[in-house]
């Protein structure tokens, strides 16, 4: 478990970090908490020549109220997201999901931005960010640009963040008063999700007015369960089962040791119903 030797750079500003990235070229790799990267390095699955640590860039850390949205800095540790009253009030489904990320030690080291850019389809944070219609802010040599979460994830471990670019923050439209639940299905307490369902709903008199459902590990990227969402509008807790059964429509889930694609599709329906009902109850 000894990584190949590498240069270590720890810039203190975004500008310096972009400079370091440019200097490192193809052989540079950003570390943003290291909870996924360090095992990769130690098992020699990757051997970058330069590792650029964003941990000392204070401006990338923290959660603030942006008016109609929240702004979460990319280097905000999961534990801070979990403890945030702003997140709990305005983006409750993210709060629910981040509570299931690994264990307290990892939640204090790992960061929201690190997890988002790593883009492991079994990671828990893509689905709630999709459900919340978040926007990703990316900076690069050409300046800043924004990408909606729906266009951010390209493939397994691949996102809109290009070479020489950094994710700096995530903007989340406030979903104040929306019910929320994250159903994470694993076969051991601390494990990647076999699948996960992030549901957030707006209800009126026990009836769903609007429903947003993001799915974890139902394809090479997190996806929205659009068919189920549309079908859920107007339904109540006791008649939403059939709509939720459509959660897997259009998905392409993987098959692995923990479950084949058919089983995942079945779980998506069952767990979407549970998540939606829990969100309505909450």
């Amino acid at each position: 478990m000894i990584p190949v030797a590498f240069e270590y750079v720890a810039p203190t500003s975004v500008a310096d970090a972009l400079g370091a990235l440019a200097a490192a070229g193809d052989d540079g790799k950003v570390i943003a908490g290291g909870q996924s990267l360090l095992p990769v390095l130690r098992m020699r699955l990757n051997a970058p020549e330069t590792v650029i640590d964003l941990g000392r860039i204070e401006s990338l850390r923290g959660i603030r109220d942006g008016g109609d949205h929240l702004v979460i800095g990319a280097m905000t540790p999961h534990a801070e997201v979990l403890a945030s009253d702003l997140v709990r009030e305005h983006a409750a489904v993210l709060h629910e999901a981040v509570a299931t990320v690994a264990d307290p030690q990892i939640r204090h080291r790992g960061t929201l931005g690190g997890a988002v850019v790593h883009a492991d389809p079994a990671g828990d944070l893509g689905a709630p960010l999709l459900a919340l219609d978040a926007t990703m802010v990316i900076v690069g040599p050409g300046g800043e640009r924004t990408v909606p979460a729906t266009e951010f994830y390209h493939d397994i471990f691949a996102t809109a963040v290009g070479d020489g670019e950094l994710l700096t923050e995530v903007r989340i439209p406030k979903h104040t008063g929306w019910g929320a639940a994250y159903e994470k299905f694993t076969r051991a307490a601390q494990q990647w999700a076999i699948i996960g369902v992030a549901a957030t709903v707006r209800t009126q008199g026990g009836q769903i007015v609007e429903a947003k459902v993001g799915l974890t590990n139902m394809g090479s990227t997190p996806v929205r369960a659009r068919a189920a969402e549309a079908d859920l509008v107007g339904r109540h807790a006791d008649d939403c089962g059939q709509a939720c059964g459509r959660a897997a429509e259009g998905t392409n889930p993987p098959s692995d040791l923990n479950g084949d694609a058919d089983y995942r599709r079945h779980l998506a329906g069952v767990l979407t119903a549970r998540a939606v009902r829990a969100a309505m109850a909450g």
Partner: protein
Amino acid sequence: MTAVDDRPEVEIGQARRRKEDHRLITGRTRWTDNIQLPGMLHLAMVRSPFAHATITSIDTSEAAAAPGVIAVFTGKDIADIQGVNITAWPLSANQKTPTHLPVPLERVSHAGEIVAIVAARSAALARDAAELVDVDYDELPAVLDLKEAATDAVLAHPDLGTNKSDVWTLDSAAAGTGGDVDEAIAKARETGVVIEREYRQQRLIPAFMEPRSTVVDPTGEQVVMWTATQVPHVLRFCIAATTGLPESKIRVIAPDVGGGFGGKLQSTPEEFATLAVARKLGRPCKYTETRSETMVSGHHGRDQWQRLTLCATKDGTVTGLKVDLLADLGAYAALVGGGVPVLGAWMFNAIYKFPAYRFTTSNYYTNKTWVDAYRGAGRPEATYAIERLMDELAAEVGVDAIAIREKNWIKHDEFPFTTVAGMTYDSGNYEAATERALELFGYDALRAEQAQRRASGDPVQLGIGVSTFTEMCGLAPSRILGALNYGAGGWENASIRMLSTGTVEVLTGASAHGQGHETAFSQIVADRLGVPFDSVEVLHGDTQISTKGMDTYGSRSLVVGGEALVRAADKVIEKARPIAAHLLEASADDVEFSAGTFTVRGTEKGISITDVALQTWTGHNLPDGVEPSLDADATFDPDNFSFPHGTHLCAMEVDTETGATRMRSYVCVDDIGTVINPLIVEGQVHGGLAQGIGQALFEGAEYDDQGTLTTGSLVDYTIPSAADLINFVTDRTTTPATYTSLGTKGVGEAGTIASTPAVVNAVVDAVRHLGVNDIVMPCTPERVWKAIQHAGSAANGGAQ
């Protein structure tokens, strides 16, 4: 039994915290990897990515030229001294046994085998250079599936001509211990019930906390090896037998060792390769593996198919059992790998007293990691099979799972009892353990809840699993091992040295690797010699200190090694008695020993054993003809195995919509005879349960079609953590063993052996009414859900 009730009970039975724990928990101790020697080099292994291949060439030039590299070795470079990883347990003279070279010269037989070794100035440099070794292979067809191996269509070792290692049978009719099982089955087909099942014992990977590590110092007159092993004494034998080094020139030290569970009961290629390289270079060398290397190269456990036929009368009285095993040895026979299934031969009949039995195991080689002992070794497999079958029989004849066992088990007043497999159980009380377990579990209330959930069609169903296990441990009577063609004895040795200043050194040949020997053995000696617990120092794990020993496995240390200790202590007392009498100016016959003091009967005159030790050391005033020594040595070879037993009850909830399982409660009442330290027993039981539950629900080694281990890290090979388990309810009944003075039985493997069937029985019980009668381990949510779906569609099909 003897002397259980009249011994002093000052220390024995006390829940002392373990004296070794501070250094083990903080890690500030002698782990092998902590050892640094002057001029020491570090090794990295180059391993085969292929399951089966011919090595066509190895180019080491680039690696040899890399920074900090001292040398690179292939198998051919060390062929003259590398030795062989031998098997100690060929089942018969006919067994086919492939030669297991630590570093193969021409052909690799499983992915992960070592093909070259880099020695460098640091572990990092060695690892960097290992990637520069260029090995060319010609891939050969690999046989990976056990049932395919049995066809010999593809050979794991073409030179053997077959994959079959050996076949071993125990037949009660042939042995004269029972009737003919085929007759019993034929009769039951006409007038009774026959249960036929095939169960899978999946392949498991031992997950000890400390990865294996070896340091070899070849400088000087003697070769010293520090290694993370359970078996320093056995290892020294293996090195002497195969490398050309005289046994007297080899010192093997197992310093503090971080767990083993059988996984370090081995002579490993890594140990032999490190030894060979150190000798070639004349410099100390260290090799410490990564977890990924543990998983491909350390031996695996279990891996059997069990074809079972149980026959009974219509009321559920068992009349016979036929067992046909297919056992996957992996690529090599390993130290005792072929014998592991045989250890189950006496356990399929378990606590039951049916009249006819036949056991056969057919052992096969495949191109996968070798298989050997893993916590329980043969007995968990057997216990799983019979306890699952008893639940199946109960369901078949419509009898409660407890009642079916009670109908068939050996009654307390029938001990000692010779079983249909020919083993004599000396003591046991299944009634008492079961009664207590039922009470703690709330059996009737849970059955009522189960009925209610079934009636209401609750999506979450409840199941209750029973396991009334026994096992044979305390390995082992040497003459029985000899009769089984095993290559060593089963005795254990202990020495006691009374030091001049009042402390006591205890030397045991049972090499601890986390069990708490230092504490438990101190308690025994403190009681026996009447000295303070803290005055006793237990030394172990060094062939030059505790020179004789058979090491630690098979729940033997306390049962066999503890008894050796008692005998050594008694010898010390008898050596001290004439000296004490002389000093007290009394006849030895008039001197009594109690609580550490010799007294003249009927007087106040006395002298402590520690004062006698000091007087013996000075030698100034000893009786004529008495040597100035208060040391003693004893070797104990047991007359029998020990037979702990217990009743384990598990309640599992099954979410029928997802297949997810959740443990609701787990109660176990174990009978392990006399308890020396209840805290250590609790630790053994809890850890054992976790490992058995791991097999039932979580663990399983998986290979892809190429023979690559796909569960090659602890991310993919799922071992349960504390967060996956619940608070176990544990209790004990006490029925002492009758052939030792302490009356202890083994506890190291009990939890693992008992819990796997209890859990799977509970999962199956939860969904049996849906038409499910088996779920392959590990019972993952997907497997549970699919079993329900399959049973449901089969039932629908049948209705149409």
